[in-house]
């Protein structure tokens, strides 16, 4: 049987130990482990993830280690609620605290979660960014995310028209 802890090497050349349980929450690491059964247990290189971000990911995994495995729900036609959009509310209090971080960190965690294929964390970060976008005007979004405005006023007017923008839009 393989050892209980896995070591990984992050992009900044740090070797971090994490428990097998946490490591297996990442599908990417999990499949690497499966592929290397019987081979020498070397440190797994994670060139996309910095140690700082990985620690955050491990934090999240620790808190969610006992969550039931995510089940792929087949969405059935629900007679009354089929028109509801995807829900972006974050219900877990710990998660709310967790996403309360700088945008840079959030984006880095999201990229890491995508790379490591940690589904729950990935969804959480996407929801958080979506919540950040909600209820903001384009100007506010640009300011919040530091995005260049490369649209002309005519473009914006045309888009507003095409979308049938609501009256409280700016």
């Amino acid at each position, binding site marked *: 049987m393989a050892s209980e802890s896995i070591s990984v090497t*992050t*992009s900044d050349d740090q070797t971090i130990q994490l428990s097998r349980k946490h490591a297996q929450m990442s*599908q*990417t690491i999990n*499949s*690497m482990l499966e*592929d*290397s059964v019987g081979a020498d247990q070397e440190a797994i*290189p994670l*060139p*996309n*993830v*910095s140690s700082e971000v990985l620690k955050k990911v491990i934090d999240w995994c620790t808190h969610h280690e006992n969550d039931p495995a995510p089940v792929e729900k087949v*969405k*059935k*036609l*629900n*007679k*009354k609620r*089929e*028109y509801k*959009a*995807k829900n*972006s509310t974050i219900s877990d209090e710990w998660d709310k605290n967790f996403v309360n971080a700088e945008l*840079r960190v959030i*984006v*880095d965690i999201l*990229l*890491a979660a*995508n*790379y490591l*294929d940690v*589904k729950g964390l990935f969804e959480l970060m*996407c*929801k958080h*960014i*979506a919540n950040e*976008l*909600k*209820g*903001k*005007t*384009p100007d506010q*979004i*640009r300011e919040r*995310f530091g*995005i*260049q*405005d*490369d*649209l002309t006023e005519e*473009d914006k007017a045309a*888009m*507003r028209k*095409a*979308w*049938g*923008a*609501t009256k409280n*839009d700016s």
Partner: protein
Amino acid sequence: MVQSPTVGSCAVGCVGLCGNRRVSPRLRETPAASLTGMALCGPLPCSPSIRGPVLGSLSPLAPLKEYRQSVTKRMFGTGNVGSPSQPRKAGKSVPKNVVTLLPRVDSTDSIGSHSGDERLSEEETSDEEPREPLVPADDLLPLELMLHVFSYLDLDSLSRASRVCSNWNRISNDNEMWRDRWALRYGESDKRYDVGWKRLYRRSTLWSWSSVHCPPEMEVDNDRRTVRDACVQQSKPKAWTTCIGYPTDSSGKCYYEIKIDRLATNSINIVFGAVREPPILKSNSPFGISTRDKSSWCYCGDGVIMIRGLPETTRAQPFEVNDRIGMKINYRTKSITFFRNGLMQGRRLTGITPDLYPAVSLIDGNQVSIVYPIAIPSNKTKTKAIQIQLPKDRDFSLSRQGSQNRVMSDEEVNTASNNSAGSSPSSSSPMQFWRHLTAGP
């Protein structure tokens, strides 16, 4: 402005990437970008059988160069990066024809400010950077991830996000995202359809007839706007049939409007209103008429407004061909108001329950279609209340033997449409209404 030639900072293998495509200083500092050197210069550090990321169409360990190119290629078309003949990667793609609002963007145009101008960016990067530089939005997150984030947005937010910059506008027009939205909402998405899902979805978001809750005696057109009673040819007496529509959200105000395309005479002919539950689809009477329908509010074609199965005392005007019948539901004030040709009918009815579905009952080959109004009529545009006694023989039985099954002639249609287009339908309609009632068998 944030272009930064990073030739000096990474290995030789990166020159191709960094020399001709932008890498913002912001991204370069992130760990994701720091992989650039490793992934390109060293052998892939693990086996190729690794599963891909949640959304990514490329392996997570694919060289960043290839990844960035595939992203930018899909963002900007195949014109400036890579060879056009190269097949697209499977996965999300932005159809080129969906963005017709913007002038075509090429690398020297509106987003050219961050591509190719090396001298400027050298100056910038050498600066202290007092505040975080503005970045092109696709440097914030790759396309696939942004699509996923956008899938959580409601339409209003998505509309606003699409106006942040041209890249987000492209992403928000992604056909497959709209198809997924459609699937989420209606539980079905036929991939064979090569349609503009955004258009379809947007239109259906307004509201549309449900093909699921439509009885077989009724026909719903493909665009879900028109519904008709399909049993004209049958000699047997047929029952009323009711079709409900998908409502819009039940949080605030909703306005539903239909146009009467075809109107065969019957004592009631068409009933339009709102129901709490999907009603019994086929019954002897239209919905809302009997007190069995505890939560229904409807406007009958003979000008009677029914609340929970009981008639109102104030009368409304009867339906005519080409009339536009509107229903305004305000869930905040729990009220419902009916309109005919933009004029309020009856009084404002209060005490409605949440989650009402628009519904229509049809008989005798009548046909109505949904109109998406430009403006919602106000309650102040009130017509004179018409006080008419209820006819005793108000007959909504399933038989149509008694009725003459007469479809309006062209002349009548014209008169009716003139009336409906005119500014004062209240002046002529009462007389017609009387004729309508007294012209029975």
